[in-house]
């Protein structure tokens, strides 16, 4: 089993996620990009755990999942609230906090 394939796959997934976050305007899609990035790091963690032969990376992957789940709950709630008040799910419309 070649470790490199897994790492390349994780990097590709992360890049796709990051690009999604940077380029898409719809908040839900941006969110999905964030999830993709998180799971890409999970894959990398598990890969390196296997490589080193210990469980630290796998444990960390569980932590990331828990945090991601919590983040989804809070994030979606925020998105729904913003949508209700501003009738839009575009992240570019939420620009009141500017200097």
């Amino acid at each position, binding site marked *: 089993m070649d470790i490199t394939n897994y790492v390349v796959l994780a990097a590709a997934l992360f890049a796709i996620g*990051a690009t999604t976050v940077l380029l898409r305007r719809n908040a839900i899609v*941006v969110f999905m990009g964030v999830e993709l990035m998180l799971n890409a790091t999970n894959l990398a963690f598990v890969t390196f755990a296997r490589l080193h032969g210990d469980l630290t990376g796998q444990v960390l992957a569980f932590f990331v999942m828990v945090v991601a789940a919590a983040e989804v709950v809070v994030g979606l709630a925020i998105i729904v609230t913003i949508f209700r008040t501003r009738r839009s799910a575009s*992240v570019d419309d939420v*620009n*009141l906090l500017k*200097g």
Partner: protein
Amino acid sequence: MNDVIGLAPWLIGFPLIGAAILLLGGKATDRWGHWLGVLASAASGVVGFILMFRMIGTPAEERSIDHHLWTWLSAGGLDVDLGIRLDPLSLTFVMLVTFVGTLIHVYSVAYMDHDPHRRRFFAYLNLFVAAMLTLVLADSYLLLFVGWEGVGLASYLLIGFWDTGRPSARENAVAAKKAFVMNRIGDMGLIAAMALMFSAVGSVRFADVLPAVAGDGTGPASALISTGTATAIGLCLLLAACGKSAQFPLQAWLGDAMAGPTPVSALIHAATMVTAGVYLMVRSGPILEAAPTAQLVVVIVGAVTLLFGAVVGTAKDDIKKALAASTMSQIGYMMLAAGLGPAGYAFAIFHLLTHGFFKAGLFLGAGSVMHAMSDQTDMRRFGGLSRFLPITWITMGLGWLAILGIPPFSGFWSKDGIIEAAFIPVEGQPWRAWVFGTVAVLGAAITAFYMTRLFFMTFGGRRPRWTEGQHPHEGSPLMWWPLVFLGVGSAALGAVLGIGGTFTTWLEPVVGQAEHHEPVLPVPVIITVTLVVVVLGALLAFRMYAVQLVPEEAPRGSVLTRAARRDLYQDAANETLVVLPAHGVARLVQVGDRDVVDRGWGVLPQAVSWFGAVFRKAQSGYVRSYAAGMAGGVLVIAAVAWLVVGLGGAQ
């Protein structure tokens, strides 16, 4: 004596409690407040009488008692005990202040009858009396200072009493402020003197400081004061006395202080306030004796002021301002005497006492005239009042004869003593006796002129010069009974206390026994010359203001007259020499603060603000640009880390 000493604090306590009740009681005390004020002052007078009779009964060497009340403050080397000093000097003042003060209280009941704030007026009068009694009864300079400031405060409140609802309200308020500020200048002198005393002796109690200066070694302080220090203390004390007693060059407030109700003028000029400076000088006698230079300055200040006041008095048409100038001049006599050493102290206090009576009588008489003439104060609008105000006429006449120094009226005994003392030669300085003696005699002549002028412009004259609609009449008995008492005092007090040197002997335990020196001229010659010039001055004034007609409008007058009308340009001099430079300094500081300090520090927030404006541009509000920034940042860090670690690893 010791069984009644416990009463002494009540001398101050009664009027102080009176003032407190009247001020805190508010409108509830409006109906009977003025009688409470009279009662408080009278009660203090009764206590004074008891103490004085017991004092007379004790042997002369036991007549100085320091009554310790409680420890006031104890800080490091400075222990100040609150105590009362009872001796012939302080009791003389107590009697003068309470007796004349009570008469003025009674008079005010009628005089202020229609004033809606009569209760407040009596509260301030009581405060005034309490402060003055604190001043004279203190056993240390610090407690004296408390009374000193209290007198200043009370005079401020009373001079500006009519500061609302009158056409002159603004001027009255300004006069009060002027008096207060000029007094503060003097107060600085007293504070400086106390600081010097503390550094030299380590105490501000009379019982420590005065023996230390005198060098008789009876005090607890072993170190004696050098002549230089004594001179410095003496001059600082003189500055204080000049402020309070309206002596040159701090006398400008006195004339304006006439803005207050007339009983206040009587109180300020006769019993309290202006006498405080003379008291301070006599009390600090040993300090002055240890410093001949300071003593000479005191005499010079007294001599200058007595001529200054007399000259100003000759030109004033306002009856109260003429009397104010006269006070200034008479206090000048007292200061002159206080600077002459033990020979003069007793006469300074004696003249202060007799002056207290006749000047209070003259002022209350002037108040009675104003009361009768609808508050007119211009003497050119009086004339021929003797038929309408017989009691005022006779009592003011007694005061007039007393201030002229005609025997046997009271002023003769005291003023003549001062003039004789002024003629006593000083070793090594033969010019002094001649100069100051001549000044004193000259002052007496001018005094005779302006007082006769005042008396005949008011009561004499062939035809009245009243404004329309005047119906002069005597006030209520409450107003003329005090006048009668003061008139009798003006007539008889001098002879009672002066013949046989009763008063001088009474004060001897405090001021010491004066060695007998012969004046440069024989005493009968001095008395005769003085009387001759006094009669000449009076006759001249009689000719000008009783025989000849007095014009209703003041004539333009000579240069000197015009100068005297404007207080010999004292206000203008103060304005130019002190006020304008002070304004200049204030403006300089203001401009410096605004343009240098403020603007200098203003650069810092401006820089921060500009810095912020640059970085604020990064905050666009777009989430995706922030995300791009983060991603870019991570890439840069990763690139740097890779370069550094990668290159490091290559080695």
